């Protein structure tokens, strides 16, 4: 290629003038091929896991019936009425809810970690889920009394919206507190997260104190995190929030990649950082809020899934975010199936299972990345 100088004199530059250096083989540092393969594999795995989750449970529905039900899109005549009721009113909503929540938790974890440039940031750990929880609890407890007009106005969306606002406020406060001149202090973020989480927890405590017996039972189960009580109504309440955000996250990938080099460099690379941060904070708060509103505090999915995937396919958010959605869904479906089976016909709250696996894992990352904390 030749370039022209202002004086009109043409000189040849070293840009593409000789033999090409790049060999058509993929570059050894390029992990996008693994990412594509893994994404396809996980998609298949998600299908298999869904069928497995649909066919396992306290009531007997054999795997052949499930398969024929799914592949005929519910038109199959091979299953009996009893199986149909189990599948349609209990298991199918639960599996779909599990996929939505799992994908949402893992993607919000990855997005938040990208925004804070730290693998330990997770809505569940830094208090955003507690903030969302406070929003949700206030409507569960006060929705029939003080907040009744608001609750009626927003219909089935009132709990997700309240959770979203709670999550938004917490995320915003957290970012303001822990970020100074474009540098996010990890120690400040974790400590501020604990403080905000504790404050939200205390307010939730007051609401629990004034709740009646029936609300209390709802709250306890909800606080531990569970997919029990999945209904189509709940799906219709949160799918319009979660699905658009999952799609939006594809557009956040570029900005998140740029942010890994710091705010200043992200700007130099062409990202409008202020607008980007705002959109990201709203997206995280909305999806965390929606997830928390229907399933309570299911922790650690947002930490474990993105971390594992970063080890396998690298931190490029273009590939990381879709992969997180798939693996998050798979993990949550598996955890939920275990939660339903382990003490059948009763069931464990799923939050207990994700925390049992996730908390040691979190500790392991913390110990490996101790230097990041610079405490």
């Amino acid at each position, binding site marked *: *290629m030749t*370039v*022209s*100088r*202002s004086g009109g004199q043409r*000189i040849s*530059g*070293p*840009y*593409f003038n000789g033999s*090409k*250096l*790049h060999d058509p083989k993929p*570059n*050894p*540092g*390029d*992990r996008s091929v693994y990412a594509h393969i893994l994404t396809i594999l996980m998609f298949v795995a998600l299908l298999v896991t869904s069928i497995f989750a649909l066919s396992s449970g306290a009531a007997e529905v054999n795997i052949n019936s499930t398969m024929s039900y799914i592949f005929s899109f519910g038109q199959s005549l091979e299953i009996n009425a009893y199986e149909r009721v189990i599948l349609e009113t209990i298991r199918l909503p639960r599996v779909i809810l599990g996929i939505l929540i799992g994908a949402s938790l893992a993607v919000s974890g990855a997005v938040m970690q*990208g925004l804070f*440039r*730290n*693998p330990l940031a997770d809505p569940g750990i830094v208090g955003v889920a507690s903030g969302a929880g406070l929003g949700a609890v206030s409507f569960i407890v006060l929705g029939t009394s003080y907040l009744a007009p608001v609750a009626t106005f927003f219909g089935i969306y009132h709990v997700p919206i309240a959770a979203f606002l709670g999550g938004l406020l917490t995320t915003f406060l957290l970012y303001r507190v822990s970020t100074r001149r474009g540098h996010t202090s990890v120690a400040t973020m974790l400590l501020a997260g604990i403080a905000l989480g504790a404050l939200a927890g205390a307010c939730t405590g007051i609401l629990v104190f004034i709740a009646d017996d029936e609300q209390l039972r709802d709250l306890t189960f909800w606080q531990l995190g569970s997919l029990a009580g999945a209904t189509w109504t709940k799906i219709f309440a949160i799918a319009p929030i979660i699905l658009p955000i999952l799609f939006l996250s594809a557009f956040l990938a*570029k900005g998140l*990649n*740029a*942010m*890994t*080099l*710091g705010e*200043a*460099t992200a*700007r*130099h*690379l*062409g*990202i*409008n*950082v202020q607008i980007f941060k705002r959109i990201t904070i709203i997206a995280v708060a909305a999806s965390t809020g929606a997830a928390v509103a229907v399933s309570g505090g299911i922790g650690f999915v947002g930490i474990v899934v993105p971390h594992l995937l*970063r*080890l396998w396919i*690298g*931190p*490029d958010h273009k590939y990381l975010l879709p992969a997180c959605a798939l693996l998050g869904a798979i993990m949550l479906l598996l955890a939920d199936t275990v939660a339903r089976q382990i003490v059948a016909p009763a069931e464990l709250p799923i939050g207990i299972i994700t925390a049992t696996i996730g908390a040691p894992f979190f500790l392991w990352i913390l110990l490996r990345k101790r230097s990041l904390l610079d405490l």
Partner: protein
Amino acid sequence: MLSVSHLNVSLARKQIIKDISFEVPSGTFCSIVGPNGSGKTTTLRALTGEIAYQGTVQINNLDIKTTHPAEMAALRGVLPQSSQLAFPFTVYEVVRLGQLSRTDMLLDHEEIIAQALEKVGLANFGHRFYQELSGGEQQRVQLARVLAQVWEPVWHGMPRVLFLDEPISSLDIRHQIQIMKIARQYCDDGGIVVAVLHDLNLTAAYSDQIVLLKAGAIHSIGQPQNVLTKNNLEAVYHCTMHVSQNDAHNQFQITPVLA
């Protein structure tokens, strides 16, 4: 063309940069030198829009305050003094980050990445993890990333600008020369380089224009032989200097007189 007029920067109510104006025409390697605390990095950060300033900074007649970040990204690349990465990227992936705002489909992105790595002498480092490299290697990877962003020094007939903040301070002498040659070549091909530098000898050898700062103001500006004089240097650095022209290599030599 980069033009800076009446640049003033105040940090915490203290005026750091006092009314700086200069122009860098296309094809020019402009170095900003001066003692510690003279405002070199602050000037560069104002020119890249990182910090608030009063005055006007224009690149090819576009005001950097009002131009959209994506448009600015196509016009200029910035190499910071140090860069930290939050996640375990490979060297190839870091260089690819430089291209994230490039939307031109016809461009051979892979070829640019390969050439950029070759240029900084890290052709076989694509698969290595960035965090496992030495400080000097990381700095060169970052330069490759910036080069991948503004690979062609002239783009749609307009010169592009490379802002380098102490690009060679963590490198050994061989790589210092390599980076200076890359910057020199960028200017010879029609681009603009604005670099903050400490090494006066390398600065003298490779620059076309030198901005010598003293306490936040321009002490003198112009061609190396006119700016890096004994009198100027002694006035700015407060130590006795010996400046000579080495005839054998036709190169400028600046050494402090140690007494």
